[in-house]
């Protein structure tokens, strides 16, 4: 898709992205943050060319997902600077020999903190308990994106005594 110019840089986020660093946990879909090529003469970004490309290759649309193989995939254009940075600084890995990009552990934690659902909080605790994040790198990201105060509240609520 990148080679065909349908998408720019991309990175796997969400629960599947977190799996690069943690033990696997049940999830039903894959979140892929994707930079879309700009359409000349338009400031609007559209997922239509991406969906058309995949539908032409036999993928079915299922609500907000498009099914690739057996996985419902949600393509998400980055909506803020944190997500843009997470895509830009993603980590290269491979799945069965195929190269792919996954967000860094620190960006996954920062995005989960920003999103703030119960399942995001649980995932953050897993990252911390399993020592899967570089705390200095995380702090720098949180400061850069205005999440330090939220992190302090999260630490007080969920992480006090986590390493006792």
């Amino acid at each position: 898709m990148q080679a065909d110019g349908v998408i720019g840089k991309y990175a796997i986020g969400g629960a599947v992205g977190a799996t690069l660093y943690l033990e696997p946990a049940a999830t039903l879909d894959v979140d892929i943050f994707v930079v879309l090529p700009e359409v000349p003469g338009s400031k609007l970004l559209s997922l239509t060319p991406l969906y058309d490309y995949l539908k032409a290759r036999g993928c079915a649309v299922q609500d907000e997902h498009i099914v690739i193989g057996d996985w419902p995939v949600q393509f998400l254009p980055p909506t803020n600077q944190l997500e843009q940075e997470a895509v830009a600084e993603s980590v290269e890995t491979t799945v069965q020999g195929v190269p792919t990009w996954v967000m860094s552990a620190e960006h996954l934690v920062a995005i989960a903190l920003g999103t703030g659902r119960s399942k995001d909080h649980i995932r953050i605790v897993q990252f911390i308990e399993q020592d899967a994040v570089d705390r200095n790198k995380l702090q720098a990201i949180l400061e850069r994106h205005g999440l330090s105060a939220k992190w302090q509240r999260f630490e007080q609520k969920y992480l006090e005594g986590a390493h006792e």
Partner: protein
Amino acid sequence: MSKQEMRKRLAALSFSEKVKILEKLRDRSLALAGSGLRRKVVGKVGNSREKME
């Protein structure tokens, strides 16, 4: 093997091996959801009532 050791061992697997496990977990979740055995939560969090579907 303790639960902690098991988690570390699973976390240390390659991404390819983890994706295979994710696929099994996904299929199991879908099978459970399709079986009607999963509890459906009704009402608000903190004041929820549960019922069997």
